[in-house]
């Protein structure tokens, strides 16, 4: 009796499954399930956004701004309109202009609200606001696609959202974690380039220092060679304009530079070891374009060898407080620089070493 009942039940289950398959109902059930999952993940992102917004508001209050809501809401939806790309003439110049205007506008707005704050503290406030704005943008874009795909029952769009969600959540969590470093001015993994430049400058006999375009230029003598060290001006949260500054230095020297060596953090491939130092050719700089092309153009113009050293890390390590193993790689990079100089740059020559990245927590 029991066996007959079970067999009937199994037959009914099969019948339901067949009906679901042939009527397409299973797809509707799938859509509903995906929408539920996507909405729950969106709620996670929303709670992260609200938490981070409150943290930044408290930070601004501690900096002396009594009503930070206005500043936060003003900069949260700040946008940049990309330059026209179907006409590529001058696109780098236009992009550079837009990026510089964005940077100066952000600085001006924050400066207007926090006039008594020093450059260092203000840069931390600017970066913290940028992080909250980035999480806000991710949330708004995801919410848009979730609502749109639900309204239109767009199976493909929902599926893409569903499978991209873990990756997007990882990025949001990384930004969330990074906020702590930016609020307190701790050096981040991306700062490995400036830290190498600083360590190298500590080892050399510095003959002159100047700041051009938010970028420090230090001149030193290294084993009878003229060494020019370029890095963002620290210890605030700043990436400087190393490309434009290197281009300017080379032009000032009439192209008499024997090597340009850039040091930067690079995103590792899955399976690669964090903190691994690798050597290559080209401009190691991860900007949207203007800074990198400035280095490439000036190097090509005067036929200057362009060498690069990178320290591998993942996005989480790059944006959050510098891990010990990344810090340990600094010594290895400096040894590599010294080896490259001795092997390739004869005595009496001039070379430029640029530490690329955010110099937060690193002076010079």
């Amino acid at each position: 009796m029991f066996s007959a009942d079970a067999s009937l039940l199994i037959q009914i289950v099969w019948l339901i499954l067949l009906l679901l398959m042939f009527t397409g109902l299973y797809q509707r059930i799938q859509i509903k399930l995906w929408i539920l999952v996507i909405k729950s993940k969106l709620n996670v992102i929303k709670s992260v956004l609200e938490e981070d917004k409150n943290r930044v508001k408290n930070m601004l209050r501690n900096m002396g701004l009594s009503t930070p809501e206005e500043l936060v809401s003003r900069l949260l939806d700040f946008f940049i309109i990309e330059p026209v790309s179907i006409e590529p003439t001058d696109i780098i110049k236009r992009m550079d202009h837009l990026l510089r205007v964005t940077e100066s506008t952000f600085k001006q707005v924050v400066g207007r609200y926090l006039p008594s704050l020093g450059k260092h503290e203000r840069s931390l406030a600017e970066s913290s606001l940028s992080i909250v704005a980035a999480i806000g943008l991710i949330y708004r874009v995801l919410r848009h696609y979730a609502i749109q795909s639900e309204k239109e029952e767009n199976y493909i769009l929902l599926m893409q959202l569903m499978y991209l969600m873990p990756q997007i959540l990882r990025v949001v969590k990384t930004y969330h974690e990074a906020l702590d470093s930016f609020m307190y001015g701790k050096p981040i993994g991306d700062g490995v380039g400036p830290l190498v430049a600083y360590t190298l400058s500590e080892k050399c006999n510095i003959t002159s220092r100047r700041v051009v375009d938010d970028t420090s230029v230090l001149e030193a003598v290294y084993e009878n060679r003229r060494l020019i060290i370029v890095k963002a001006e620290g210890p605030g949260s700043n990436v400087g304009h190393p490309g434009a500054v290197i281009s300017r230095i080379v032009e000032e020297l009439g192209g008499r530079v024997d090597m340009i060596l850039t040091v930067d953090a690079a995103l590792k491939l899955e399976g690669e070891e964090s903190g691994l130092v690798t050597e290559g050719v080209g401009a190691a700089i991860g900007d949207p374009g203007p800074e990198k092309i400035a280095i490439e153009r000036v190097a090509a113009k005067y036929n200057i060898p362009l060498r690069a050293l990178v320290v591998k890390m993942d996005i989480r390590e790059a944006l959050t407080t510098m891990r010990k193993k990344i810090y340990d790689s600094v010594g290895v990079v400096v040894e590599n620089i010294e080896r490259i100089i001795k092997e390739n740059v004869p005595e009496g020559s001039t070379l430029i070493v640029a530490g690329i990245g955010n110099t937060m927590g690193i002076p010079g």
Partner: protein
Amino acid sequence: MSSLEAIAAALFLLVILYFIYDYYLKKKREESTKYVTRELLMCLNCNYRVEQDFEPGDFIGLVKGKCPNCGGLMKIKAIFSVETST
């Protein structure tokens, strides 16, 4: 219920249990990786080193405190995060 159906049901249950266990392990692994920020101070005089917790406002190169060994000035040599298990 035939023995074949019983085996199928047991297998199904095992698969479900495996997924729950895998989810639990993943969650635990994610939660257990916490980092704490430390700073390394070095005496400018005798190279004596001290590692301590990071304090807001500190940065690399900042001269901070006196050496417990020789009384010389201590400078922040490094700031980094280290893993701590909870």
